[in-house]
């Protein structure tokens, strides 16, 4: 299996403060991989290092076998599309917003969007079920719909890898499931490789094939969801007592908390 993303011995942080302390892992082409870990373990810093917001102190990142630092911003935007947990909401219609995803494909002197741009944008708006909001202002939509529109914009970049930072953290369960089902469908049907940071361990277990569990700027354990979500590693990293079992319907790993009361019984 080839890897869409290879992260090799990266070290990064803010100024003198090193947060990512030598991390290496791979995201297989066509896989759906989640990054989990407690608060302040460096998930977001890792994300911002891959996006290029923070520069590498050392190490290398390869996207589709190409060194990411040697790509132009436009080349990079054609390979990786990024969706964050919340974003500045411009006063734009959904269609205008999604069309901005065509930017890396437009040539320098192109004043109007081409028919192809519209075609691609409409295709992904339909796929994400946001075509019905086409002419509505994005800042008037619900949080869940905004996240779907952001995913439509990312898909319009026609990337090899979709990178998401906690795409469901502000949403209720209806919209969490809606967004994650979409992401899984994109992964299965379009063979789109996905790497996402995800806070909720049960959602991570339910939706991700592979997981990377981070702790204190390092990879604690990585592997399939079943391998990673075991009570020993979770308790060690989160310092909380948990029980892991399989979801009776999906047979995917699930994590249960044990409160004080439960503990005494």
């Amino acid at each position, binding site marked *: 299996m080839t890897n869409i993303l290879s992260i090799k011995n990266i070290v990064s942080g803010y100024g003198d403060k090193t947060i990512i302390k030598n991390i290496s892992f791979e995201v297989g082409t066509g896989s759906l991989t989640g990054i989990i870990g407690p608060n302040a373990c460096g998930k977001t810093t890792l994300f911002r290092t891959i996006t290029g917001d923070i520069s590498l102190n050392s190490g290398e990142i390869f996207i589709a076998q190409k060194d990411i630092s040697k790509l132009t*911003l436009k080349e*990079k935007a054609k390979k990786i599309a990024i969706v964050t947990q919340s974003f500045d909401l411009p006063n734009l219609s959904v269609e205008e917003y999604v069309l901005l995803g065509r*930017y890396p494909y437009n040539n320098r002197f192109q004043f109007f969007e081409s028919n192809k741009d519209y075609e691609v944008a409409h295709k992904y708006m339909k796929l994400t079920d946001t075509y019905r909001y086409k002419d509505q202002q994005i800042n008037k939509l619900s949080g869940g719909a905004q996240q779907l529109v952001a995913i439509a914009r990312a898909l319009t970049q026609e990337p090899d890898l979709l990178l998401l930072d906690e795409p469901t953290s502000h949403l209720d369960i209806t919209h969490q499931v809606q967004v994650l089902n979409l992401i899984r469908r994109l992964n299965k049907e379009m063979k789109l490789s996905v790497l996402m940071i995800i806070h909720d361990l049960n959602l991570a277990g339910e939706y991700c094939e592979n997981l990377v569990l981070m702790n204190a700027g390092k990879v604690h354990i990585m592997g399939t969801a079943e391998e990673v979500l075991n009570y020993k590693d979770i308790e060690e990293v989160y310092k909380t007592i948990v029980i892991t079992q399989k979801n009776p319907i999906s047979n995917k790993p699930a994590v249960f908390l044990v409160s004080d009361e439960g503990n005494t019984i």
Partner: protein
Amino acid sequence: MNQRLKKWVINVGSLLILLLAAILLALCVGEMNLSPTELLSILKSKSGIEYSIIVNIRIPRILLAIAVGGALSISGLVLQAIYRNPLVEPYTLGISGGAALGVALGIVFGATSIFSIFSLPIYGIIGAFITIVIMYFLSMRRTHLNINSILLTGVMISFITSSAIMFLLATTTTEKLQNIIFWTMGSLDEPNITLVYLVLTTSLLGLGVFYFFVRQLNALRLGESHAKYIGVNTSLIIKILFVVASIITGISVATVGVIGFVGLVVPHLLRYWLGNDYRILLISTFLGGAIFLILSDVFARTIISPNELPIGVITGLIGGTIFIIAISKTNKLLKF
């Protein structure tokens, strides 16, 4: 898509008609009032004192109003795009103040003869540029820029520069004092036609450069980091836009003095009318700024005729009032 293009053509067309109407009004009204037919016959005769007034006084004033109105408005528009904040403009960022201080220093230290007529614009540009560099480093070096502190810093720079100008006024010779006061009053009366053409050329060039980056301006609506994610070299683009905005503001301020609120009011009314697409906003804002300043100048010339009010008084009163009314009616204006 054709529908949108049609809408844009109609919008620009109606602004052009308004501009022509404003120009006609400015040609006819003043100390010497003319009807359009009289105006036409004077222009045909090509002689006489009326002809001379129109060609040597009124037309240069109109050209200067177009140049400066357009320049200040598109500078405001572009600065708002960079900061993604509707209250930013050359005046509130202190750029106009910096340009004014540059010019005042130029007059006081008598270096005006070195570059002849281009000296004041050059001092204006230098002043504006220094302010821009200060603002840039204060705001862009931090990872999360705090728009309130930027606006406050801009206002403080305006205060500091106007105090520094006061200081210069208090300590300099009477002749230079008059020069500075005359200039700071702000007037579109510019006897040197070469300078008028210079200002007009730079502001049209500025419009051209901004159009060159119009897709990047549109992408910046996503915010700086997301614009970068879709492939925009944001740090370079923002620097270029900053420099161009400071050049066209500096030249304008050096030629006509400080005229506030143009860069705030005009882009907002047009955003309200046309939405947030910079492909249509840039040209419309330029035309709107030109119309606004021509009309303000007509007021400034006629209200207390035969005397003339400083044009900044008019733009401040009209602009500020329109802005407050518009904001109180709807807060859509403040959404980006």
